């Protein structure tokens, strides 16, 4: 039998993080010049959106997953670690993949911006894995997923000619299914039934940490219009993106609350449903938001996304947990996965083409979507298998969803 005590990370984590950071500094030093690029726009125009994005990524995603009773510290703090690692690696990857080696590349605010945008799928899948993986495993996952995402972006851009905005919106689907498969691999390597019993108590939410999760949800909810409109260049399109997202989010918030009450026998509202379903509208409207010209379409989309999300939260855990053995406590499947798919399909159907090229364009678009899905699943499976290796010193099953494995508690205070 394995040791009951959490395995020590003392030699593993510092070494790994230190090496990565030094490698990043060296790579940046040789590959990216520190000159200021020619400024096309005023400083504030380019800068304004970066705090919004960082706020969503660091605070929003961090607190979104903090609703587990005994795992809030890890959710918030690991999220920050994943974010910083992911942004650096994405900036470097962008330089590797999109520019030749001789080319002079400068560091600009837009590289920070795209770096943050491409880290969002990683943060989504981190939510699915949180509680079962330690920081070392998460770091490996970040490297794998960001690379897979970068390669996918390159292929999509060159083969399927899908633009950056749409691809970033497909990122939700990518991240969600990647995370689900990693979580599946992690739970499959354990003896059946052992983990469920250990987790049931810890996965329950507590009032105060549910409020913390609400903080994350609200921040994400507030800044989602910025997220959906970042990569849109044309001012008119940008306005459309913001307005559509705004209305879709509002509708999905109303839908989520009412459907959550409707689906409970006594008409009680479930806080966990709110955390997730409220955002579904924003995710769903992401891809098609440039094509929607009147608010009612966006609102219908928000309504559908809210319904799907609550429906998923109600019905899917049953089959996911028992048949496929996928643990999905963070609910990313129905927050990001299903609404993201809905949005992608809507985008493809709404794309108005000439009559003659209809089939080929349609096939192309569906091809792109299924390629993203396939890449997400394949790389997720690969990463999951990699993460089950013994070298990462994964936490013991009895320590799943438990901060005690990762944190020093000088006080072991009341209330924990």
């Amino acid at each position, binding site marked *: 039998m394995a040791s009951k005590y959490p395995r020590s990370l*003392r030699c593993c984590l510092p070494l790994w993080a230190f090496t990565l950071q030094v490698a990043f500094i060296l790579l940046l030093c040789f590959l990216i010049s520190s000159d200021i690029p020619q400024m096309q726009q005023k400083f504030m125009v380019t*800068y304004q959106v970066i705090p919004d994005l960082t706020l969503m990524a660091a605070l929003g995603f961090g607190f979104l997953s903090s609703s587990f009773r005994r795992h809030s510290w890890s959710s918030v703090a690991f999220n920050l670690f994943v974010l910083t690692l992911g942004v650096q690696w994405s900036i470097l990857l962008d330089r590797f993949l999109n520019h030749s080696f001789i080319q002079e590349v400068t560091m600009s605010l837009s590289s920070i911006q795209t770096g943050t945008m491409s880290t969002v799928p990683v943060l989504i899948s981190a939510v699915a894995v949180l509680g079962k993986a330690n920081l070392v495993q998460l770091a490996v996952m970040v490297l794998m997923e960001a690379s897979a995402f970068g390669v996918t972006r390159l292929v999509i851009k060159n083969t399927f000619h899908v633009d950056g905005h749409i691809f970033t919106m497909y990122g939700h689907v990518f991240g969600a299914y990647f995370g689900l498969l990693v979580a599946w691999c992690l739970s499959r390597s354990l003896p059946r039934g052992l983990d469920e019993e250990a987790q049931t108590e810890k996965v329950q939410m507590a009032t105060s940490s549910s409020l913390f999760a609400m903080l994350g949800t609200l921040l994400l909810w507030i800044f989602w219009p910025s997220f959906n409109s970042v990569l849109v260049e044309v001012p008119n399109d940008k306005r459309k993106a913001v307005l559509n997202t705004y209305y879709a989010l509002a509708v999905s918030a109303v839908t989520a609350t009412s459907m959550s009450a409707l689906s409970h026998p006594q008409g009680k509202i479930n806080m966990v449903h709110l955390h997730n379903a409220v955002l579904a509208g924003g995710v769903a409207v992401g891809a098609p938001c440039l094509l929607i010209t009147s608010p009612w379409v966006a609102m219908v989309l928000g309504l559908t996304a809210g319904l799907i999300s609550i429906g998923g939260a109600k019905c899917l855990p049953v089959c996911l947990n028992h048949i496929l053995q996928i643990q999905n406590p963070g609910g990313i499947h129905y927050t990001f996965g299903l609404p993201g798919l809905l949005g992608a399909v809507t985008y493809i159907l709404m794309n108005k083409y000439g009559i003659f090229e209809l089939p080929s364009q349609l096939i192309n678009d569906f091809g792109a979507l299924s390629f993203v899905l396939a890449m997400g699943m394949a790389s997720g499976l690969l990463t999951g298998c990699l993460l089950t290796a013994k070298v990462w010193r994964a936490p013991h099953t009895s320590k799943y969803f438990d901060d005690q494995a990762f944190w020093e508690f000088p006080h072991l205070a*009341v209330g924990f």
Partner: protein
Amino acid sequence: MRFKFSLMAIGLEVVMIVLFGLFVEYDIAHQVNATRSPKTDQFLQLYPLFQDVHVMIFVGFGFLMTFLKKYGFSGVGFNLFLAALGLQWGTIVQGLLHDKGQNFHIGIKNMINADFSTATVLISFGAVLGKTSPIQMLVMTILEIAVFAGNEHLVTNIFQASDTGASMTIHAFGAYFGLAVAGILYRPGLRWEHKNEESVYHSDLFAMIGTLFLWIFWPSFNSAIAEPEEKQYRAVINTYLSLVASVIMAYALSSLVERRGRLDMVHIQNATLAGGVAVGTCADMEIPLYAAMGIGSIAGIISVLGYKFLSPLLGNKLMIKDTCGVHNLHGLPGVFGGLASILAIYFGMSAGSSSMAMQAAALGSSIGSAIVGGLATGLILKLPIWDQPPDENCYDDSLYWKVPKVRELDPQFFQHAHHNHLEHEV
């Protein structure tokens, strides 16, 4: 403290209003006809940055100080009170010093600078957190901002040193000022672990909100008063990279110094920000990217090491009890930032006018004036007329706030008491 505190605060506020009436005017006199004068343009340009700084001061610093289990109300509440008072006083003092006692106009830059001046007070507040009464804090705010404005005037106008992100004039100054005050106010009764001086699970999570807000908006803080466009651009990128590097280093080091490779929440809350503090002075210089990341990494390392080894030493040997550990978050990285700027000028990375000697003088005068001012303030605060809380009531909200009877939010916690036992270490 019913009458003493309220009457003093109201009296001060009246004084502020009178001073504003005498000296301060708005900066909008000449633009009745012009639709977009450069002044309005600058206002709209800088307003988002000002907002970010405002969030950092009120939400960031406020929540960062909520980590004590019974002192959360005071952390956020007094933070708001002191910052609101301090920014008025800062506007007056900075304006008077800058304009040699004349009437002066205020614009967006004055608002940003006034917010900056309150940051010093909030940093010092962190050092004495829990051991002082609101009246003492009020007196400290007034004195500290006066000293700060004098030092800042000396550094920027007489030495002409470059200190965009204010590593020296705000962070190092605030930290050493606070340490000096804490040293004078040292009480033997608080030397050993006080029963309230610890955190609980949720108070640490609240503190994490503050950390994240500070982390997110730090690039705005360092670029707010940089010269427009190119230098601001540089400041943002350098600060961002430095912050990112210091996060990774803080995690690595925290895991290295703790038992069994675990992390310590105190390190994560604070050392992740050290990169932003340290890169402040050279944020807008033409330093290469790897230098910015290097500064961030080293700052993260020294901050964690400071928490682990230096703070206990300060507390036990030098009789300075630093509640929040501001010395490790603001003091050491601030000094390091000043030294880094001297190096940067040595390697010719600064296009500005400042020289190495002037940077060194700025660093010296910041620390010197902070210590002298702090000692003097500490002596004034030690007078028995300010209602200092007795030892047993330190770190406790109930002395100043109406608190709910039952503190824990969730009675369910106690049903799972069997999880509270410590696992035996191998």
